[in-house]
């Protein structure tokens, strides 16, 4: 009897999860309600625009997706330090948070663009959020600064195209002599330590900002392909 009950619960749960997976990809209802309840009508409007963007660009070629997405965030969001936007040194915001604040620093841009492209059916292995060392002109002097961009690899060994918030247009990596790439990741390889396995006891999940951001996204209603969402 107990076994039977257990089986029933198991089967039911499995069905729910599979059902959730099936409908999650194109269903942003949870995200919409999060936007409205947490941030209000303005944010909801922007989120709706963003959802429309995803739906529109999904069938388009990669190159077009990159342009639309890059422009969407570079236009809507203004670049500030985390300190200004979030009141703390380094905070990795989710796309919803970024869209609600309308402000963001380099990671927030890169994350939002990355997530949007993934949601628009861009293959994960083509994208890498990349730490770079950037030389930025401030007045008369040029300073080196840690920065983050999104790199798009049309082919595994090809030169990537860079989506940045300093230089607002997308350009090939070799054109960006001001950037020196240091470390690139996406939910693929790095997610071995972060994204895919939602295990709360995994120290990488608890500690990493990337993990925090991915987890928060899930709560807000953004469900990445291949993830189980409620």
């Amino acid at each position: 009897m107990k076994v039977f009950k257990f089986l029933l619960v198991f089967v039911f749960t499995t069905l729910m999860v599979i059902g959730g997976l099936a409908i999650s990809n194109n269903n942003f209802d949870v995200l919409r309600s999060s936007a409205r309840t947490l941030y209000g009508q303005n944010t909801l409007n922007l989120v709706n625009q963003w959802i429309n963007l995803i739906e529109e660009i999904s069938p388009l070629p990669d190159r077009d997706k990159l342009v639309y997405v890059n422009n969407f965030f570079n236009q809507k969001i203004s670049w500030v330090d985390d300190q200004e936007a979030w009141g703390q040194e380094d905070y990795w915001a989710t796309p919803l948070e970024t869209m609600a604040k309308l402000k963001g620093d380099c990671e927030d841009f890169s994350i939002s663009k990355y997530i949007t492209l993934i949601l628009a059916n861009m293959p994960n292995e083509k994208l890498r959020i990349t730490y770079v060392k950037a030389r930025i002109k401030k007045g008369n002097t040029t300073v080196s600064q840690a920065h983050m961009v999104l790199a798009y690899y049309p082919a595994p060994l090809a030169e990537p195209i860079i989506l940045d918030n300093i230089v607002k247009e997308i350009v090939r990596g070799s054109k960006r002599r001001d950037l020196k790439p240091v470390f690139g990741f996406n939910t693929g390889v790095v997610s071995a330590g972060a994204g895919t396995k939602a295990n709360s006891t995994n120290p990488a999940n608890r500690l990493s900002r990337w993990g925090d951001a991915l987890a928060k996204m899930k709560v807000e209603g953004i469900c990445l392909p291949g993830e189980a969402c409620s």
Partner: protein
Amino acid sequence: MTLYKQLWVAIIIALSMIFVGSLFVSSLSAQQYLEEQVTAHNQNYANFLALLLNDQCSQEVCDEAHLSTWLKPPIDQGYILSIAVISPLSETLFSDNAIEKAGQAPAWFKRTFPLKPRPGGVNIQSGWTALGELTLTSPIEDVYDEMWEGSINLSQVYFLAMLLAGSIGSYLLGRVLKPLDDVVSQAQALGERRFITTAEPWTLDFKKVVSAMNTLATRVKEMLEQEAETLNEYRRDLHTDKVTRLLNRDQFMSIFRATLARDDASGSGALSILRLSDLGGLNQTFGYPKVDAMLTDLGDAVRWLTNINGGWTAARLNGSDFMMLAPALKQRSKLYADADDYFEIIPANRIKQSIVDAQGNTSVAKPSLHIQVLPDVQSSAAESISLTQHPDMGEVVYAGQGLFIYSSEIGVEGETKFSFSVNIDGEVVERSIRVTMASINDPLSVARDLQSQIRDVLKRHGMLEATQLPTAAIYFNPGDPLGALMTALDQQIIASEAEALSHIKIAYMGDMTAELSRELMADWKSVFETAFEENSFELDLVEVTGMDGSLLHYEANVRLRQADSVFRGGEFLPWITRLNMTEQLDREMVLLALDEIKARGKPIAVKLSAEVIREPAFAAWFEDTLSRRGNQHTLLSLQLLESMAFRYLESFTELCALARRYGIQTGIEHMGHQMQDIGRLFDVGINFMKIDDFFVTDIDKDVGNQNLLRTLTTLAHSIGVLAIAQGISTKEEIAMIEKLGLDGASGPGISIKN
């Protein structure tokens, strides 16, 4: 399985289950935790290498040689097990791995708790160009070893806990079970039909058991006592005079005959007769009811005399003749003094009466005599006291209140005088008093006891003036013809009666003088001392058989071998008694019996005396002797006279307990005269009782004794005791006692059948 073993098994099972459970849980959580740690370590290391290589490869071309330079050291150092770099086109750019040695953890442990940390993975790039994916794994054997060691430690802790819990449990169990030993020994005693009661233990469960067993023991005891009482009444009706409840002539004569036939110290002694002259005249003067009341009192008084002097037997032969048989069992001394106008002499027996203890035992302190100035005489302190004759015969002290106490050593016989003066009514009065010391079973002293006892009763009833109490006494030895003794006694009593005075006459048999002369004592003393030195005492073995003719044991009598002759026990034992050598002879007998057992393997019953069992050092000597004489002692039996066994029941019970520890049988001989006490035997733990010849002789013709023996045998069997008939001489007697259910017999009519 004992409770202790069960406790240990329970503790081991319980702790083993907890151990396995906690080992499993702790290993599982360690497994998970370690897996995560290794995974994190892998990823950290991969990330670190990626940062390093990305920087390096942005400056120079990262070929395989270059990758080797950077990736080999961590492997060689042993912190990393394997590293591979696979290009996006699935080419292997670099791959190396260390070979891990197996650790201490056994294979089954690794299979049970497998560690599957995820490899660290990271993309490395050369400038903007992807170079490939780096994956690395860490060595895992050390981690297994850690887990294994932890499990071992845990198991050790549990093993210690098991030992500790077991030890504490055993200790507590021991405390709880301690009363059980007592319960078991009581149950065993009940099994042996010793109906003892014990104190109830504090443990509730055992308390119930003990309470139940105590109830059982008490019931049985009550039942036995009732039976004994019935038996005693039966015996009394059969053998006693209705008015005085003293034995009748026939019974007294058979006892006396059996006594004379005895081949030991009790075969000699004193016989006294007292005639209540003119009993017919008393009846006319006072009437039957008053005289009967006096006679009942007289019976009580005489019986009291037999009670305080164990082994004595009293009888009313016919209307006016009373007899007292006093076998020489003891050698206490007694004091007598003549009365005076101003002084009351408190006789020794009345003093003894006041010091009879709860068990009915009388103290055997120094014989003493109290001389009390009569209360109606006004007197002050004694002026002077002195022994005027034989100063070595004792001493006199003034105890105040007009009371003089004269005391003497035991064993001294003779006569002395002491004189003293007291201030009476302002006048100094001088008096001298004659004091006689005599052995207690001396014919004269027995006669005096009997006479003074009866005189007291007559005085109480106011009949003393109306009658005389002529008394006679005689000394007898084993084998003396009964008829001749009675004739000699008769002559003396007739002579005494003719004088119409309450005189005491001592009769003598032919040449034999019963006077105890000091010279004779000294002679015997030297004979015995030589005999002890030269080991010339011998055993005279008499068969005791079962009803099927098989041997039960030999009863050991003592013989004394002199150069050319052999003395039978009866000839010299009275002298042994008088010379206080009984204890020494008893020990000699025990040693002789043990020698005989060792030499020939014969089962032997040794007769002990009351003196030896009451001697405090005997038990220790006996145990010591047994342990030095090897293990033949299970063939030894000990037996004691009935009168002595009941008189010193406490000492006898202790001796029986000691004997039981060594597997030695114990028993009572010449049983049957104190049937009222038979209930007291229920927890003593004897193995056999030998019923006196008195009840056995002519048993085939005596229906009364048949009933008595049948009941006594049933009673004996109910407390697990063998009943053996003594003095069997005819086939008819054997057939009858077999029919009555007795277990064995001894006597001239008995022979061993093989």
